[in-house]
């Protein structure tokens, strides 16, 4: 398993990324010292509660942080290129061509006064110099790919259902055949059945077109099912990361335990579940040690003072928690 893992090509590598928002009172460290690696063809799920920094991370990777938001330090490598050093214009050349994004609410991300087909063509024309006819053909072909009839090319967003709009967004993200698609809660506002059809579509397209996915959501039960690897974020940090089934069946971090305990199941005995008491810390002034310690059921003295080291277990499963110090399978280095 690990052999095939390491033979895979690294597509995206994020190293010690710090990003956040400049406010009057200081700097809100929404993403704090985050590192992870995404391989080619991999489906990485990032889970966390609202305000944990998962969307900021996505926007940082896409170089879309604006106004008071910025990357403070850290590096992002994409296809072996240091893209975090690119200028705004330099990044424009690769955004959407090599990496694209499906935004949270399709309802607001589409322009209401333009036909969906025109919006798809806009994306094509912005990066490729091809004839209008060719672009239209390509747009229709993309719509077909997400099961929307070519006659919908002339529809306005308000004429489409929520699920269809979200599929248009997916078509838009894939229209230039990027190697990486970041999906920021693409199914959150949708009904379960529609959500399921969209997920199936994404998986089908991923096999067909072979792109990598970073899928961001708060719905852990969904993520476990669809991703290869899973990263759990809490208060700006990745606190656990590993193969999805492994994280699900052997969660290490107490926060991951708590999250797994917050989703009732459809089978097996019904047991009382706890959830997690308390609320996430203020990111303007986060706790000095582990960010989870005020809510943690297994808190120790050192948790309050030092941030736990990252401990690596077999199968590329890592956790940042004092509970596992000295218990890892490999030295981190």
């Amino acid at each position: 398993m690990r052999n095939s893992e390491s033979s895979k090509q690294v597509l995206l590598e994020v190293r010690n990324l710090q990003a956040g928002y400049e406010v009057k009172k200081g700097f809100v460290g929404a993403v704090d010292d985050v590192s992870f690696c995404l391989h080619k063809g991999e489906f990485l799920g990032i889970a966390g509660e609202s305000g944990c920094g998962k969307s900021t991370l996505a926007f940082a990777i896409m170089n879309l942080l604006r106004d008071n938001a910025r990357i403070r330090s850290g590096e992002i490598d994409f296809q072996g290129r240091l893209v975090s050093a690119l200028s705004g214009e330099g990044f424009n050349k690769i955004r959407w061509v090599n990496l694209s994004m499906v935004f949270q609410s399709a309802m607001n991300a589409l322009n209401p006064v333009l036909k969906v087909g025109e919006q798809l063509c806009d994306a094509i024309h912005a990066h490729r110099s091809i004839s209008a006819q060719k672009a239209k053909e390509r747009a229709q072909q993309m719509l077909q790919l997400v099961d929307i009839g070519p006659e919908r090319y002339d529809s306005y967003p308000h004429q489409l259902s929520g699920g269809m709009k979200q599929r248009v967004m997916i078509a838009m993200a894939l229209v230039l055949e990027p190697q990486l698609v970041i999906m920021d809660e693409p199914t959150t506002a949708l009904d379960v059945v529609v959500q399921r059809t969209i997920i199936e579509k994404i998986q089908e397209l991923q096999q067909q077109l072979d792109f990598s996915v970073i899928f961001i959501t708060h719905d852990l039960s969904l993520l476990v099912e669809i991703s290869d690897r899973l990263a759990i974020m809490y208060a700006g940090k990745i606190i656990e990361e590993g193969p999805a089934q492994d994280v699900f069946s052997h969660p290490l971090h107490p926060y991951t335990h708590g999250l797994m305990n917050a989703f009732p199941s459809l089978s097996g005995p019904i047991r009382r579940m706890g959830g997690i008491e308390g609320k996430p810390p203020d990111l303007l002034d986060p706790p000095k040690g582990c960010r989870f310690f005020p809510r943690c059921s297994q808190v120790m003295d050192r948790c309050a003072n030092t941030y736990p080291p990252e401990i690596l277990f077999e199968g590329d499963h890592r956790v940042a928690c004092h509970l596992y110090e000295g218990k890892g399978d490999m030295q981190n280095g």
Partner: protein
Amino acid sequence: MADRFILELKEVSKHFPVRSFRRFGQVVHAMDEVSFRLKEGEVLALVGESGSGKTTTASIIARLYPQTSGKFVFEGKEIDPGRSGKRNLAYRKKVQMIFQDPFSSLNPTHTIFQILSRPYVIHGDAAGKKGLRSRVQVLLESVGLEPPAQFIDKFPHELSGGQRQRVNIARTFSVEPLVILADEPTSMLDVSIRMSIMNMMLEYRETRNVSTVYITHDLAGARYMSDRIAVMYAGMIMEIGPTEHVIGQAFHPYTKLLRSAAPAPEKGLKRQKLVTHGDIPSLIDPPSGCRFHPRCPFKMEECSKRIPDWKEVDAGHFARCFL
């Protein structure tokens, strides 16, 4: 022991007029022929997608508006559809609603004390100004907002979403209702907070024997909360029965579809592909016969001709399907 029923809906329908010139005179069939009985102390989950009529059903029970047709019986007495005005205080004291959005259901210009003392004042059991304050404190403690002194003089915007939903629930508890209508009370909250809100409602049910209609689109959450489940689709109940039966031995193809669409992490890659096509039908011009037939993988000729009758598939487990 014979079950006692607190309320009963008999073929209740609610049609809203369409406010559009082109479609003048047409109606939206938000709820059609909905019948069920709520036992004392029972949690009944209404499960369905958006637009399936769940909230309309709760609003009819809350008497926010009158039904178009059908009978509504509460405590053995038929409630006249005309009596849905604001003056129906005695009824409101017995039936309370928890709204979905904790951000818009609390008045932003009132303090928590003002919000929570209103029910006591309105329902006439205010025990003087001093007594009122201590009652609100007890109330805050009962929903886990401790110490109450820390919350009582705050404004809603100073609280987190979970805390606001607790205030909402406290407001519901304040009048000690017989029936609680919970309209997706946890859908706008963070995952780590959801369970504590659900547990709080379950505990309240155990101590007070209050009957609850719990509305949700989350089948797993419904299983956690309820004794019985009613599955709604396009304004009609498709299947109703004991929770474990409806989930474990789903009969109606729509229930099966919902069940297979729900995330199930333990399934991993073994999942079967979803068999469905099409979208939720228009409720202005709903399909003839069974409302699910255009999307149903098992549809027969009969399905488009008439609405299936109720069929008892197991003890207390009914489905509206020709299969």
